[in-house]
């Protein structure tokens, strides 16, 4: 194989691999599946990007006491309906109420609790 063919093969490989490698969730999405699937509902996907447009960090992480550790909060539907955790806003007035199960419990089956989403970085300090 001459250099010209090798170059072509490399370009072809790049053309196929680069887009395929880009299947990932949005940065900072949180999967919460501490007990959801165990009781027959889908895991929760919490999108940080959506919430930080509307609320500063300390609203949830100081005022509502939500620990900055995925899976580190004992969130239950009873507490949410009582106005704790997500229920402080998801009350049917400020945001959709807890009756809209599918809107939060929207994850694929089998997902593990944790922070998801690719960094999609261009590399160290390239900006």
């Amino acid at each position: 194989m001459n250099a010209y063919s090798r170059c072509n093969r490399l370009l072809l490989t790049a053309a196929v691999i680069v887009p395929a490698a880009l299947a990932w969730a949005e940065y900072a999405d949180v999967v919460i599946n501490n007990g959801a699937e165990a009781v027959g509902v889908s895991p929760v996907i919490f999108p940080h990007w959506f919430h930080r447009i509307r609320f500063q960090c300390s609203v949830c992480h100081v005022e509502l006491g939500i620990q900055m550790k995925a899976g580190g909060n004992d969130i239950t539907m009873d507490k949410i309906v009582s106005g704790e955790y997500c229920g402080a806003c998801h009350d049917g007035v400020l945001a959709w109420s807890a009756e809209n199960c599918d809107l939060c419990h929207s994850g694929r089956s089998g997902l593990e609790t944790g922070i998801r989403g690719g960094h999609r970085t261009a590399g160290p300090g390239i900006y």
Partner: protein
Amino acid sequence: MKPLSATGITIGMLLLAMLSLGADKWKSLKDDDLHDPSNPSIDVLQEPAEALSVLPPDTSGNKVNWVAALQSGEINPRGSLQGDLKPEVLELDVVMTTTLPLPNVIFPHKPHTEWMACETCHEELFVSQIGANPINMGRILEGEYCGRCHGAVSFPLTECNRCHSVKPEGSPTAPPSGATRDREQ
């Protein structure tokens, strides 16, 4: 008609790949490997591209310069559920000098306090005393100290120069990033 050469086909595929790179900047919820595409409510949820494509761009994370978005007023997130309170902004830089061989770290309180109240970090994550926090990259990579947010929600840990931005003699090593560009010197 002259047949397409292998090179022509390859260049065409590369162009397509580049186009899809742009299209893939924000994955659709149905294609993000997290959301269940068969969820009956999936079309009700906002798509990331709709909200994020109109905000100041960045090269990593959500591809949004969140600090610039806040400072420019393009977003106006509520600071409290108890009325119209905002965290108190503190214009105080902290220089961390135990970083060799990398450049020193400059921690700007300003963009951080624009986003969150003091209690978010103090005193649980950081003691409010210079030199009292044994911060290192190992702990940060484990999600402690700066790593509680950076690498999870805030710009990722691959962006070395955004924190390691000052040579010991004080000259910046790189153009200021969105996170630090408005810092007080």
